[in-house]
C-alpha cells in the first residue's frame, strides 16, 4: 500500500475524533512552546549581558585597587588599599606599549544639591579619556578638558538620571550645583547609558575632574580604579602582563615579596564568565522544558493505546480485507507522527507568538533562537515516533478474528 494512502487513513482517523486528537496534541504543544519561550528568555538575558559588556568599551582593561573578591557573582573590593594613584594611570599609558589610553577613576556616593532639591548620587572623578575608553560620550555641552582637570576646576558633567531628578524640565547647563559643600558649574550632559552588569544605573552619575575630586571633594591621595584601553584585542594578554609588571615595580611589591595590591580584569574574561552562567541557566530551563516534551510523548502513548483498544474491531476488519501487519504498523506510526509533527508545529507558533508578546509586554529582552525551534521540533518528532512505535506494534500483532470478536 502506498504511504499517501496510509497518511490519508490516519488523517481521517484523527479528524474523526477531534477531542482525543487535541488532548494528545496538548502535551507536545506545551513542551515545544515551553522550550522556545525558555530559550528565548535565556538567549535574551545573554544578549543583554553581552551588550552591556560590549558597551563598557572596546578592548577594556580595568585595574582595581586591592584584591577583588567574588561573592555570589558580584565583585567586591575588600578593605581600602591606598597604593593606586593618578600617576600610576599616567605611567601605565606611557610605559606599556600595548596600552593606548588610560584614565583614573575614583567614585563615591555623595549628596548633591540644586536649589532646594537634593539627591544621593555617584560622583565619578575621572579625565576626558574616560569617554573613549568606556564608550560613554557627552551629548550636550562639553566634557572638561585635560587642562581643566590639571587646574582642578569645578566643572561637572551630569548623567541623564541626575538631570531628571534634580532639574526636571530646566536646562542644567550653566547652573551651579553643590556636591557636598563644594559648588560646581554644570558644563555638559552625558548620553544615556542604562544599567551596568550589576544593574546599577550608569546615568545616575556626575563626572568631575579627578584632580578636583581628590583635592576638593573626597580629600584623598589615591584612586580605586584605572581604566585602560588596549591597542587591539589580540594584545590583551600582553597588555595585562605589562600593566602587572609596571604596577608591581612602582608599588615595590617584588622587593618586599608581597602579592599584588591590585586586580586586573579584562572584558574577554567577563564575557566568558557571564556566558558560562547564562549557558548553565539555559541548559537548566531547556532540560525542564524537555521533561514536558517527554510528558507530551507519554500523552501520545496513552491516547494511542486507548485508540487501539477502541478500534480493535476496525483493525481486525482491515486485516481481514487485506491489510498486512506492515500496513497497520505504518498507519499507527503515521498517526503518531502526525500528532507529534502537528503538535510541534502548533507549539512553534504558540511559542514564538508568546515570546513576541512577552517581549512587547515586558521589559525583558527575548531572543527567539532558530536552533531551539529546529531542535524542539525534531525532539517532538522523535518522541512521537518513540512512543508511537509500541502501540503501533501492538496493533499490528493483533489476530483478525479475535479482534473482530472483541467488544
Amino acid at each position, binding site marked *: 500500500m502506498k504511504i499517501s494512502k496510509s497518511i490519508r487513513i490516519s488523517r481521517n482517523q484523527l479528524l474523526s475524533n477531534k477531542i482525543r486528537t487535541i488532548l494528545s496534541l496538548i502535551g507536545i504543544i506545551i513542551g515545544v512552546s515551553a522550550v522556545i519561550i525558555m530559550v528565548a528568555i535565556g538567549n535574551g538575558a545573554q544578549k543583554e549581558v553581552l551588550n552591556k559588556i560590549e558597551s563598557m568599551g572596546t578592548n577594556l582593561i580595568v585595574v582595581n585597587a586591592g584584591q577583588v573578591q567574588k561573592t555570589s557573582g558580584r565583585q567586591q573590593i575588600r578593605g581600602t588599599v591606598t597604593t593606586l594613584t593618578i600617576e600610576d594611570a599616567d605611567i601605565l599609558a606611557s610605559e606599556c606599549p600595548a596600552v593606548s589610553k588610560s584614565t583614573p577613576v575614583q567614585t563615591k556616593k555623595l549628596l548633591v544639591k540644586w536649589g532646594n532639591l537634593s539627591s544621593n548620587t555617584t560622583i565619578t572623578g575621572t579625565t576626558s579619556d574616560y569617554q573613549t575608553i568606556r564608550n560613554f560620550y557627552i551629548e550636550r555641552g562639553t566634557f572638561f578638558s585635560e587642562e581643566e582637570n590639571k587646574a582642578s576646576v569645578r566643572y561637572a558633567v551630569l548623567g541623564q538620571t541626575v538631570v531628571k531628578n534634580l532639574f526636571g524640565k530646566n536646562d542644567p547647563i550653566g547652573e551651579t550645583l553643590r556636591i557636598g559643600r563644594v559648588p560646581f558649574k554644570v558644563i555638559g550632559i552625558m548620553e544615556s547609558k542604562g544599567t551596568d552588569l550589576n544593574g546599577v544605573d550608569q546615568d545616575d552619575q556626575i563626572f568631575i575632574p579627578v584632580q578636583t575630586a581628590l583635592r576638593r571633594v573626597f580629600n584623598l591621595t589615591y584612586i580605586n580604579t584605572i581604566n585602560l584601553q588596549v591597542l587591539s584585542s589580540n594584545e590583551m594578554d600582553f597588555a595585562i602582563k605589562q600593566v602587572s609588571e609596571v604596577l608591581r615595580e612602582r608599588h615595590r611589591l617584588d622587593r618586599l615579596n608581597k602579592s599584588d595590591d591590585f586586580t586586573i580584569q579584562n572584558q574577554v574574561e567577563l564575557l566568558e564568565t557571564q556566558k558560562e552562567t547564562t549557558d548553565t541557566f539555559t541548559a537548566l530551563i531547556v532540560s525542564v522544558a524537555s521533561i514536558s516534551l517527554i510528558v507530551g510523548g507519554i500523552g501520545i502513548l496513552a491516547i494511542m493505546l486507548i485508540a487501539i483498544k477502541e478500534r480493535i474491531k476496525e483493525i481486525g476488519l482491515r486485516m481481514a*480485507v487485506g491489510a498486512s501487519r506492515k500496513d497497520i504498523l505504518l498507519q499507527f506510526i503515521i498517526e503518531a507522527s502526525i500528532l507529534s509533527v502537528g503538535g510541534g508545529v502548533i507549539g512553534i507558533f504558540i511559542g514564538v507568538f508568546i515570546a513576541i508578546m512577552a517581549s512587547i509586554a515586558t521589559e525583558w529582552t527575548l531572543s527567539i533562537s532558530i536552533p531551539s525551534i529546529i531542535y524542539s521540533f525534531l525532539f517532538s518528532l522523535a518522541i512521537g515516533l518513540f512512543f508511537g512505535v509500541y502501540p503501533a506494534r501492538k496493533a499490528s500483532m493483533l489476530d483478525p478474528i479475535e479482534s473482530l470478536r472483541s467488544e
Partner: protein
Amino acid sequence: MNNIIVKAERLTKVYNKGVGGDVFALRDVSLEIHKGELIAIMGASGSGKSTLMNILGCLDKPTEGSLFFEEKEVSKLGDKELASVRNKKIGFVFQSFNLLARTSALENVELPLIYSDKVNVTKLAKDALNLVGLADRVHHHPGELSGGQQQRVAIARALVNDPDIIFADEPTGNLDTKSSYEIITLFQKLNKEGRTIVLVTHELDIAEHAKRIIKVSDGRIVSDELNNSPRNAETELNKLVKEVKNEN
C-alpha cells in the same frame, strides 16, 4: 484434477475455556473446494460453521491440521502474501456484517480496494453497491441502514475486489424471503460467471439453491452431498413478485 481452490486436511479447532474445559469447535474436518462450486454449509447453532468458514477464509488458524489455498499451505505464507490472498482472492461476508460505524456505505465498500493497487476505487465501490441494489444509499452510515441493507453493504464489500472465492456466513440470516431470494439470485449469478461461493445457512430451502450441501454437527462433517437439481432463485423471485401483485 487441478481445479482445487481450497483444501482442508484434518482441521481441528480447540478453544481453551478454563472452567468448562476445552471446546472442540472443529474435529478432524477434511474438505476440498473446487473452482466453480456453489456450496451451502448447514448445521445447528454452535456446530462450528463460522469457525470452519473463518479457517477456510484464511482469517483464523486451525489448532491442528493444515489448509491449502491454491496449493499453497496457508500457515507458511508470509505477512504480505497472506494479506494479498485475503485482499485479492477471498471475499468474506461476516455473520455480524462488521461494518465500520463512523464511515459511509461507500467507504466501507472501498476498504478492501485501499489495500489493493486498484486506482478507480470510488467507481468500483459504487458499481458493487449498485450490484447489491444500494445505489441510493451510498452515503448512508451503517446506523442509518436496515439490517438487510447492512447485510448487502457487507456483500458489496466482499465482491468489490473481484475475488475468486466468496465466503458468506449466513448472508440471508437477517433478511425476509424476498430479500433472501435477491441475495441468492446474486450469488447464483456470480457463480455462473465463474466465481466459487461458499455460504452458511440454517434454512434448507436456501441451501437447496446450492450445487453441494455440507452438513456439520458438533464440529464434524456429517454429510457432504452434491445437489443435482439446485433451485433457481430468480424464477422463485419472479413468482414471489407475481404473487404480491395478484394480492393487490
